[in-house]
């Protein structure tokens, strides 16, 4: 039956119907596209509004924030807020501390994690898989469990209020090891085999073949580690006392204690602590997004 009907449709009717269907589909596509753009814009605006409000507040006169009408464009624009906020606490010092700690922690984690990950991915040695499983298991331990003994250790070593306390515990990461190991497993082995035949040492293979091939994964770990260190709050809060040793988040918190209701200054200070992470994110965005997907490919 169906076959007979199909044959019965004349060539012309068929092509007309086809064109009509295509037109309809095109119209529907445009509607969907428009609706999608509208939805995307609505979400985008609601994401940006709080951040724009922060910017707006940071440029207002101190009294202007306590008004019941919403004012988005500050009048007058008070750039002085940034100067005042910057000078109210040693923010320059906080910046240096955060950059130094972040750089050290990042370099340390990339080096130690990549070395361990290479061994877990490529080298044969007794106990390897058991040890790797132990690493995996530690990722479930809450930070609160290890932090108290870590604090006691740091205190015993007289490292409270030193860079040692801020940096050393951050140098080793089970997550970084895990992530890089997963990436190394996906690399083809041919190059290594060839290098081995040419008499390349294991360290040479790690340094000259694995590392250059893994730049995307290393960039991901770098971005993630740096941003994690930049935003880290509890540990620096516990192990620093003096103003000279505070990192940016702790300094910002101290600043809040000093100017609890001066929202213009607080927002100015908040904005300039956010700037570097935003820059790092924009620069390493691709790696960051890829890294998230990489971290999720478990087991």
């Amino acid at each position: 039956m169906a076959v007979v009907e199909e044959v019965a449709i004349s060539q012309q009717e068929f092509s007309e119907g086809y064109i009509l269907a295509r037109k309809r589909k095109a119209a529907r596509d445009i509607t969907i596209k428009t609706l999608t753009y509208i939805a995307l814009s609505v979400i985008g605006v609601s994401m940006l509004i709080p951040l724009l409000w922060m910017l707006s507040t940071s440029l207002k006169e101190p009294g202007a924030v306590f008004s019941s009408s919403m004012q988005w464009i500050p009048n007058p624009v008070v750039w002085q807020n940034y100067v005042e906020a910057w000078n109210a606490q040693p923010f320059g010092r906080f910046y240096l501390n955060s950059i130094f700690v972040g750089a050290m922690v990042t370099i340390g984690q990339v080096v130690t994690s990549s070395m361990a990950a290479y061994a877990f991915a490529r080298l044969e040695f007794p106990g390897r898989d058991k040890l790797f499983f132990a690493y995996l298991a530690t990722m479930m331990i809450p930070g609160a469990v290890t932090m108290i003994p870590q604090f006691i250790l740091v205190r015993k070593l007289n490292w409270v209020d030193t860079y040692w306390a801020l940096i050393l515990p951050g140098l080793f990461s089970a997550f970084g090891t895990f992530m890089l190991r997963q990436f190394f497993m996906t690399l083809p082995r041919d190059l290594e085999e060839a290098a081995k035949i040419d008499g390349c040492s294991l360290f040479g293979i790690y340094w000259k073949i694995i590392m250059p091939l893994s730049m995307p994964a290393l960039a991901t770990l770098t971005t993630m580690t740096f941003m994690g260190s930049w935003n880290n709050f509890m540990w620096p809060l516990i192990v620093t006392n003096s103003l000279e040793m505070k990192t940016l988040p702790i300094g910002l918190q101290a600043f809040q204690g000093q100017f609890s209701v001066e929202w213009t200054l607080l927002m100015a200070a908040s904005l300039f602590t956010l700037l570097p992470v935003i820059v790092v994110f924009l620069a390493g965005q691709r790696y960051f997004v890829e890294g998230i997907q990489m971290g999720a490919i478990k087991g």
Partner: protein
Amino acid sequence: MKDFLSKIGSNESVAGYLFILPNFLGFLVFTFFPVIVSLCLSFVDWDILTPPKFVGLANFVALLGFHREGGVIVANDPLFWKYIGNTLFFMLNIPICMAGALVVAMVMNQKLKGIVIFRTIFFLPSICAGVALCLLWKWILNPDYGLLNQILGAVFSLFHINAALPGWLSNPAWAKPGIMLMGFWGAIGGMNMILYLAALQGVPKELYEAAEIDGANGWRKFWAVTMPFISPTTFFIAIMGVISGFQSGFMQAYVMTEGGPAGATTTIDYYIYNNAYQWLHMGYASAIAWFLFIVIFLVTLVNWRFGGKLVHY
């Protein structure tokens, strides 16, 4: 044995151990030993300044036990249970944020010009996590001059609604929803959205076409094709969310509310911090931390065991 020794002594084994050594030392010093020490600490009474006193299970009894007071059974540490409740309440945000992230990912899952710009904007809030963001939201949630109540006030007067505006962080009933709103804003465009987006892009187009031929509408396609296909991602996000949910809320409490009003925003993590570093109850704090660890472990185990069955394919 001889075989084992010769294996250990082989070049590759020695190299393997050497490569792991730096990381492994850090693992021992900053993870393995601390876990052991923490367990030991949970059986002592210690204020750091005087020598620790072994108290057996007293910390756990004080934490988890109950006693009779005038005929009523009361918890030895009622605050602890209250803070458990707070923590669980905050965790209600996990499914809400997951649904939000999925919706955003589905909108994003189109071949459109400029989608990368949107992705960047959506991702921005989750990047800015930290003290600065807590301060920003403390300001936005300000009952009198905050942005949120100004917008709400405008909406209320537009529709002639005669209701009091929420007091947010200054009101015990509204403080948790306020903080959850901040979490929602930070989460729907972040990591989980990216994960969902990747999962959605992995759903084979043929499945949708087959469903269409069978006469399935959009809603039906979502539940019959999309949801089963992305269930591994949902499962992964949920497990990670629960693990971190039990440990969350410290920074918000410390920066925005000091755990108040009336303890409404104190989570377990903040309670541990106060016990350890404010009141120097190192033993008690360790006991709470271990309790938390065991809860997380068990919940994750249950999730794996039963949640795994809900994952299709």
